[in-house]
């Protein structure tokens, strides 16, 4: 046994102490570990025959903290650097840019040298120097060859951190994916902004920035300058504010639509009635000046938003769908106004006020429906936000006082009566109750809570009154963390979405080119070649007007709204549905990775099994079962080992009285020796008995049989005589076998990874039906085993819960942490299962598949609309059909609106899908 003090860097609080201690204790052979964040060290007692110092250090580093080794010149920094501000400066000089990056995790000058060397090796970097004292890297680089993201990646790949601040803002006034791209571009051009992700359906922008160079008001101004509204991201009582904003948008578009509808009807009747000779239409509506006035009202009120949007965008050199609509409606309106007030000749007697009015009416209808349906896609977040309690009752000077939930502080004693909502997270100090946690975990059966139990904010107290001490409040509560995780996931773009965004971003330009070409074709070739004068009536005697109408139709039908909506809206609904079922998916990228998985690896302890050993067998050789169990329990009473605790628990369950023993002696790796009533009691391995001169040969068969069944067998002796055998085992969760069965049915190969010996591991695997066992794997080697599976060409998901699983979760293609898992495991995973139910792993993968399929369907429909609609709008069918098949611009507007609505409605079907458990 050896005692060592390991110096640790990065511990900030008692939580860190707990994490480091648990990491060390997780290593086999470590009997004691006590971390002290003030001293920055952990005291560890370990058995040198079982483990070594390096293994313990690796386990601590895997938990996210730095181990400082005095003999080492440059300690290896681990992940999770302390976030500090990044300083970045830009200087344009001869096309080169200068950037200063704040680095975390450097511990000596050679760290700085390492980073400097790596940065200088990047192509496009002219010079890079790293200052250890200031923790800054100054890089001069060519922006056409390399971007700051590469520097960040390089630094983090070396094991250091790049610090930056992040803000999430609520953006209003976006109408399509192009708007989101425009805002992203404007933000990225702003000095001091490192990265910007703007989500159109979520109406949210997540910005990584340098607070020394740019402030949040500056960022907001940048967004406003491009023509959008912006407000600080929802901190609290966001549900109401977001709901209000959405309702306002719905109301605005509804009023716009009603005005457009009321005016478009008489305009259309008048304009068309005049051309078609409809006598039922009153003459007043056929008057050009009346039509002009009505159409002008449509353009000025419901149509103004498109022209305003275009103007604001063009001022910053940006184009979006507003430009398409403004060009189309503006052209139809302008030519009609010219025809009304100028004498342009016989061919120009015709006006197109109806076209302009109907276009605006249909597009506003589309926006109205989109606003309605978009609200439903973010329902999950709203529901989660709505779960939070508004007030809490705390005990002040012995009296209960009701206060807003925001004012509850850590350590306040909170009183909750039956039927009330638990306002914040905490630990019960008084009372007994059952709590409905279904809103957070999805678990429908109420969970019993007694003194010492943890309670989660937003859950409902069902039966008894309890008092609890608040442990997490505000942004730290489980609910707030879940909301943040889901929001982050919804803002993060999937690779497939980035592709769709690029297409949508270039689409506007492509459409204008197409509209120009279409105009040229019909003006110079089509009008004469396809004999438009004779085949068309309706006053279309001007080649310009005819070509213009076709060109407008192309502009209108090509709006890339549906393409831009296809992916983010599916991710929103998918992740939202996951959150409702206790499955947190961290972003769109995971969905794509989950689609490709073929192997699922389960950690054994705590994931497939309950993680707590239970007494399973007592085989007496001398005396009764209870005698043997009593002896074993006496011996283990002083032990803190989980196996000892299981024996003690088993004895208590059988009502056996367990007195205290004297002279407790733990023999590491072998067992325990105690003196009781003048007798010497031993409990432990074969080796312990052999070392004490006991013959265990007659027990071998029984011991092997127990071990073959995955149990840990221990021999009990009293006064140098074998008394019996005790077996304990970490029992399987009730749902493990079902989870494996489901995954098999889905076509996955299922493996189990464990540190247990082959025989025990095989026995467990057999019980649950696992086909591949990775046994005798040291905690730090789990990631290596995952790597080996990946080297076989497999796409691997790792399901685990412990600190030691964190590296393996990171190494796997998709890391799945179960909710009972540690913070580190949850941090390392890409999918988090809130419930402690392994069946949710299959559910999560199923949901990922469903969501990705929905994205694909949406993209298909979006591209289908455009690829069919654009050629028809351009008049491709005209030469081959009689009468000629040409799309009216108003029909094009209706089709365009329909495409966005179709995509949204198709996505909403995902909400109806039941994730079978």
């Amino acid at each position, binding site marked *: 046994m050896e005692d060592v003090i390991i110096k640790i860097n990065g511990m900030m609080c008692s939580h860190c102490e707990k994490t480091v201690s648990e990491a060390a204790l997780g290593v086999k052979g470590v009997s004691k570990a006590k971390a002290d964040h003030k001293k920055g060290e952990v005291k560890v007692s370990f058995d040198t025959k079982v483990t070594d110092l390096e293994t313990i250090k690796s386990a601590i580093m895997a938990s996210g903290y730095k181990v400082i080794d005095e003999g080492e010149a440059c300690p290896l920094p681990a992940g999770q650097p302390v976030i500090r501000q990044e300083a970045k400066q830009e200087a344009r000089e*001869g096309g080169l840019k200068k950037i200063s990056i704040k680095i975390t995790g450097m511990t000596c000058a050679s760290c700085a040298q390492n980073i400097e060397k790596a940065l200088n090796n990047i192509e496009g970097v002219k010079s890079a120097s790293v200052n250890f004292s200031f923790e800054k890297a100054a890089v001069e680089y060519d922006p*056409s060859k390399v971007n700051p993201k590469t520097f960040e990646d390089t630094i983090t790949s070396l094991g250091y951190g790049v610090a930056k601040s992040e803000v999430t803002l609520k953006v209003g006034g976006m109408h399509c994916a192009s708007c989101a791209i425009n805002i992203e571009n404007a933000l990225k051009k702003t000095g001091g902004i490192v990265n910007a992700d703007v989500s159109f359906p979520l109406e949210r922008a997540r910005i990584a920035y340098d607070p020394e160079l740019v402030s949040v008001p500056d960022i907001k101004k940048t967004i406003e300058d491009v023509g959008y509204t912006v407000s600080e991201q929802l901190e609290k009582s966001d549900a109401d504010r977001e709901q209000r904003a959405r309702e306002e948008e719905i109301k605005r578009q509804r009023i716009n639509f009603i005005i457009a509808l009321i005016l478009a009807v008489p305009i259309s009747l008048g304009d068309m009635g005049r051309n078609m000779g409809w006598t039922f239409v009153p003459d007043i509506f056929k008057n050009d000046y009346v039509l002009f006035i009505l159409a002008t009202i449509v353009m000025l009120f419901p149509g103004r938003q498109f022209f305003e949007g275009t103007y604001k965008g063009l001022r910053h050199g940006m184009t979006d769908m507003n430009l398409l609509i403004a060009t189309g409606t503006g052209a139809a309106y302008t030519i009609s106004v*010219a025809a009304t007030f100028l004498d342009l000749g016989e061919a120009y007697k015709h006006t197109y006020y109806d076209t302009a009015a109907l276009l605006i009416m249909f597009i506003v209808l589309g926006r109205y429906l989109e606003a309605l349906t978009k609200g439903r896609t973010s329902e999950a977040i709203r529901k989660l936000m709505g779960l939070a309690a508004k007030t809490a009752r705390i005990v002040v000077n012995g009296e209960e006082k009701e206060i807003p939930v925001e004012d509850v502080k850590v350590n306040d004693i909170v009183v909750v009566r039956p039927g009330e909502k638990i306002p914040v997270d905490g630990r019960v100090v008084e009372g007994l109750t059952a709590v409905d946690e279904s809103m957070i975990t999805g678990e429908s059966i109420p969970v019993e809570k007694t003194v010492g139990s943890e309670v989660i904010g937003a859950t409902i107290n069902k039966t008894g009154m309890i008092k609890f001490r608040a442990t997490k409040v505000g942004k730290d509560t489980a609910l707030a963390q879940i909301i943040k995780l889901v929001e982050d996931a919804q803002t993060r773009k999937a690779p497939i979405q980035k592709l769709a965004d690029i297409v949508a971003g270039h689409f506007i330009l492509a459409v*204008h080119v197409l509209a120009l070409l279409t105009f040229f074709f019909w003006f110079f070739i089509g009008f004469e070649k396809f004999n438009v004068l004779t085949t068309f009536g309706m006053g279309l005697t001007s080649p310009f007007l005819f070509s213009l109408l076709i060109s407008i139709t192309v502009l209108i039908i090509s709006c890339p709204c549906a393409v831009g909506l296809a992916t983010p809206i599916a991710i929103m609904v998918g992740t939202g549905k996951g959150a409702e079922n206790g499955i947190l998916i961290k972003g769109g990228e995971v969905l794509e990775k989950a689609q490709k998985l073929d192997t699922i690896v389960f950690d054994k302890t705590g994931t497939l099994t309950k993680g707590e050993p239970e007494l399973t067998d007592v085989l007496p050789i001398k005396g009764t079962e209870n005698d043997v169990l009593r002896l074993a329990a006496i011996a283990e009473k002083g032990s803190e080992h989980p196996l000892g605790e299981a024996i003690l628990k088993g004895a208590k369950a059988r009502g056996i009285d367990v007195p205290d023993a004297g002279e407790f002696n733990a023999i590491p790796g072998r067992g325990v020796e105690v003196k009781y009533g003048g007798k010497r009691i031993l409990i432990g391995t074969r080796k312990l008995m052999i070392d004490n001169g006991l013959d265990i040969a007659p027990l071998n068969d029984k011991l092997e049989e127990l071990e073959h069944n995955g149990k840990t067998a221990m021999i009990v002796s009293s006064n140098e005589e074998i008394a019996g055998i005790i077996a304990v085992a970490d029992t399987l969760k009730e749902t493990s076998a079902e989870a494996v069965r489901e995954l098999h049915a889905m076509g996955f190969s299922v493996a189990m990874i464990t540190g247990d010996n082959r025989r025990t591991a095989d026995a467990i695997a057999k019980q649950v039906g696992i086909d591949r066992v990775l046994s005798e794997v040291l905690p730090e080697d789990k990631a290596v085993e995952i790597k080996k599976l990946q080297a076989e060409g497999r796409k691997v998901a790792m399901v685990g819960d412990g600190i030691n699983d964190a590296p393996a979760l990171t190494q796997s293609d998709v890391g799945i942490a179960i909710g009972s898992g540690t913070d580190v495991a949850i941090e390392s995973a890409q999918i988090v299962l809130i419930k402690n139910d392994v069946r949710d792993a299959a559910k999560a993968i199923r949901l990922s598949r469903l969501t990705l399929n929905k994205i694909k369907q949406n993209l298909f429909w979006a591209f289908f609309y455009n690829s069919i609609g654009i050629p028809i709008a351009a008049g491709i069918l005209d030469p081959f059909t009689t009468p000629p098949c040409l799309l009216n611009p108003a029909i094009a507007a209706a089709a365009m609106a329909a495409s966005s609505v179709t995509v949204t409605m198709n996505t909403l079907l995902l909400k109806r899908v039941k994730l079978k458990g």
Partner: protein
Amino acid sequence: MEKKLGVYSLAASLSTSIVIVLLFYILALQKVNAYPGVYVKVDVYAGMVYVFILSMIVSASIWPGIIEKRYSVNMLQKKVSQQDDKENSRLKT
């Protein structure tokens, strides 16, 4: 410098649009001469306005990117050659 790049982009966009409009005008005049009853001057003028708007939108979207890229490449080459010159003169001395 950015202001200068903006002026270049505007000039390039205007030039491109004017060339396209002129092309339209020349071709349209031929049509007016060939089919006097069908194509009239108003068609040509209205068409020119429409073509100018569309081509301005297209070229104003394309040129700024091209000019900015060109500018940074040129400046980089200039910088590199300046450094080479400095290095050469240092070696000579």
